[in-house]
């Protein structure tokens, strides 16, 4: 069984300040972990993914995430928020075996103030 918990439903930051979106997972196997972003009225888009290579993963638009097995975490960070980062962010876990059905977190809404 697998699950993912996004610890904050909303995160509010000022433009130019760092962003931290938290994600914890539970998995019986070595997981693949993803962050997707959903802008209003747009489809979900992959930001980055971890698939058992380097634990620090860099994605698009300056985002990165670090896989920490000991903490079962995969937090998403960005050094400096931009207004265009305002969106809904989803953490996703998928494991080998079975039918590889990804499990989505409930999402974190990132609000960026000018």
């Amino acid at each position, binding site marked *: 069984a697998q699950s993912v918990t996004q610890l904050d439903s909303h995160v509010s930051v000022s433009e130019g300040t760092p962003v931290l979106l938290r994600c914890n997972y539970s998995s019986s196997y070595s997981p693949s972990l993803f962050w997707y972003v959903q802008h209003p009225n747009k*489809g*979900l888009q*992959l930001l980055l993914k971890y698939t058992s290579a380097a634990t620090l993963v860099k994605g698009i638009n300056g985002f990165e995430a670090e896989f920490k097995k000991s903490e079962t975490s995969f937090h998403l960070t960005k050094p400096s928020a931009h207004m265009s980062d305002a969106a809904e962010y989803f953490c996703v876990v*998928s494991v080998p075996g079975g*039918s*590889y059905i*990804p*499990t*989505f977190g409930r*999402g974190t809404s990132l609000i960026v103030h000018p």
Partner: protein
Amino acid sequence: GAGVSQTPSNKVTEKGKYVELRCDPISGHTALYWYRQSLGQGPEFLIYFQGTGAADDSGLPNDRFFAVRPEGSVSTLKIQRTERGDSAVYLCASSPTGINTDTQYFGPGTRLTVL
């Protein structure tokens, strides 16, 4: 290249009616997924196709929901006797092979409203 497309973008229907939602995946992608997303929630898995066959339909909420992918490309999600609780955004995604490391490519969704 073309991404995943879904039609219609919006569908309004009356309680008890039948609806069909269509998904055109990226050409060559063998895996296709349907999800349902309610307001303020993450996508909820419905069904997964590997080629023409439904590899996992454990997320379908009841027997009013059915999906097909007869030629391993386009898929149709069918909902019979719609209920107000079926109102949601229905998302389709495809991926190259369906393994756990695959990136999923999502369509824009179909917003279903049942009056």
